[in-house]
């Protein structure tokens, strides 16, 4: 570990060619594929689901105003479902990142920083 002017510990900086080599490695390609295959579709679906809800709220007032029970209507249920999906995606992502990504990234980080 080297030391910054302000006392921060900075790991030794591997060269650019080293990073290119790592990027080309099958282990990294595999990590990237798994990461992107999870986060990109999930982010896209979450946003689509949000905009579907927004568009319904703006243009499908009749449908959104249908009462389900008591004074609780479709609009409220759909709004609360946005909370449920946001919490759900958060929990699922944390589990995925902890179980699938972290072990690989930890190993690769040690390799890169150790192998300068």
């Amino acid at each position: 570990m080297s030391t910054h002017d302000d006392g921060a510990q900075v790991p030794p900086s591997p060269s650019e060619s080293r990073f290119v080599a790592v990027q080309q490695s099958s282990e990294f390609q595999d990590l990237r594929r798994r990461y992107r295959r999870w986060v990109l579709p999930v982010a896209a679906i979450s946003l689509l689901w949000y905009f579907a809800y927004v568009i319904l709220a703006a243009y499908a007032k009749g449908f959104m105003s249908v009462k389900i029970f008591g004074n609780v209507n479709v609009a409220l249920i759909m709004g609360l479902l946005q909370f449920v999906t946001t919490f759900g995606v958060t929990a699922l992502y944390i589990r995925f990142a902890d179980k699938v990504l972290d072990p690989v990234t930890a190993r690769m980080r040690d390799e890169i920083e150790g192998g300068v």
Partner: protein
Amino acid sequence: MKVGNPWLNIAIFAIFVVVTMAVVLRASKTNRSAAEMYTAGAAFSGRQNGVAIAGDYLSAASFLGIAGAIALTGYDGFLYSIGFLVAWLVALLLVAEPLRNTGRFTMADVLAFRMQERPVRTAAATSTLVVSFFYLLAQMAGAGGLVALLLGITNRAGQSFVIAGVGLLMIAYVLIGGMKGTTYVQIIKAALLIIGAGLITVWVLGKFGLNFSALLGRGAQKGASLDPGKKYGVSALSKLDFISLSMALVLGTAGLPHILMRFYTVPTAKEARRSVSWAIWLIGLFYLFTLVLGYGAAALVGPERINAAPGKANSAAPLLAYELGGTLLLGVISAVAFATILAVVAGLTITASASFAHDIYASVIHRGRAPEGSEVRVARIAALVVGAVAILGGIVANGQNIAFLVALAFAVAASANLPTILYSLFWKRFNTRGCLWSIYGGLLITITLIFFSPAVSGDRAAMFPHSDWSWFPLANPGLISIPASFLLGYLGTVTSREHLEGKYAEMEVRSLTGAGAVREALEH
């Protein structure tokens, strides 16, 4: 109209200030280096930072603005809550961890990683300052209204005086405590705010025999509609405006510089992930409370009294507290609301001053070779200047709609910042010109459209209601400015011959694995 006892309100707020100032003074022992000033040495845990993020994010607009919007219009106010919450998924899935892994202090660290450093840092610092300015203005404007209600000060000069006092207090927190002190203030404030809102929620539900449906019914009788559209459904244009606003809300969060900076206060990407997860749970919980607060205020206080109060919609939550718990609960809730403004303004000030000192002064002017210790000194002076601007802006903007001003800050962040952040992290070909076009283009388009919108002139509720130079029909520009900024980033990139794929390899490896990231700045 007078509610509560101003002296009690002041006393409770004074207790908050004394307690937090003691905490800040304790934290200030390590506030000398740039790393300590900006990111508290990256030494907070994910949970601490998550609570602090909630403290930073749940601004006066969230607390007072949304509760008031639900109380007066009903369901349309709730739509704000949902946009503000879902937005966090973008931050969680796409931004927080790569940002923590590739940067150290500011948003510009990530954007300038593989680009020509000086022009990109200048652009990123410019948009950081603009977003922070709009956001600051919103918070300080809110302080004025709150003062009117809680301290019974109705004349403009008196309100201005109190706004200046809030600003000076905030500057003291920032200068003495740096990021560490400010973070503790945010943690304390978030806890008070969520507990306070939770208490009122349970109380309101208790009044209706824990029957949520009965509460909704009573609120609806008083004009808080259960169906969407009361505010945004009146015309084809207002519906489009609503779509535009929703876009800005959901895409703005992950581009807010003061939120991005919070990801640097933890040691690793894993802790950054933990922070966002904590923040999402806390923020979501709070927005569920606002639903009850809003309909509760409609049902128990009623729109006539809310509209008659100084601050109008913004006073719905404090009036509800008064209705339930009398003078004491009003005092507590008002102190929490003040603390909210104070903490958010402090966070914004740190971000703006760090961006100026680190990006402009140290990197652009001195090319990374600024004299020892001078960067921190510049950051402190910048904090003073930002504080002064916030005070003046707050005095001028006193009385403007808080939620509207915050929505503008979100529109600028979503247009000028988010496209460049996403392109930087995920698009190999992205380069300097694309980055500059997207930031400056996004800024210019957003601000131009706002200036010529009915929000600024030509409308009864506009900033300048008596003149009319508007030609852009939407109050929020997001629908046009966000896609335009993405497009500009693309066009700028493909028309430039600069290729930075080699540097992208490094950035990609770092952003995914965390290799080479600054993990621990201080030995504690």
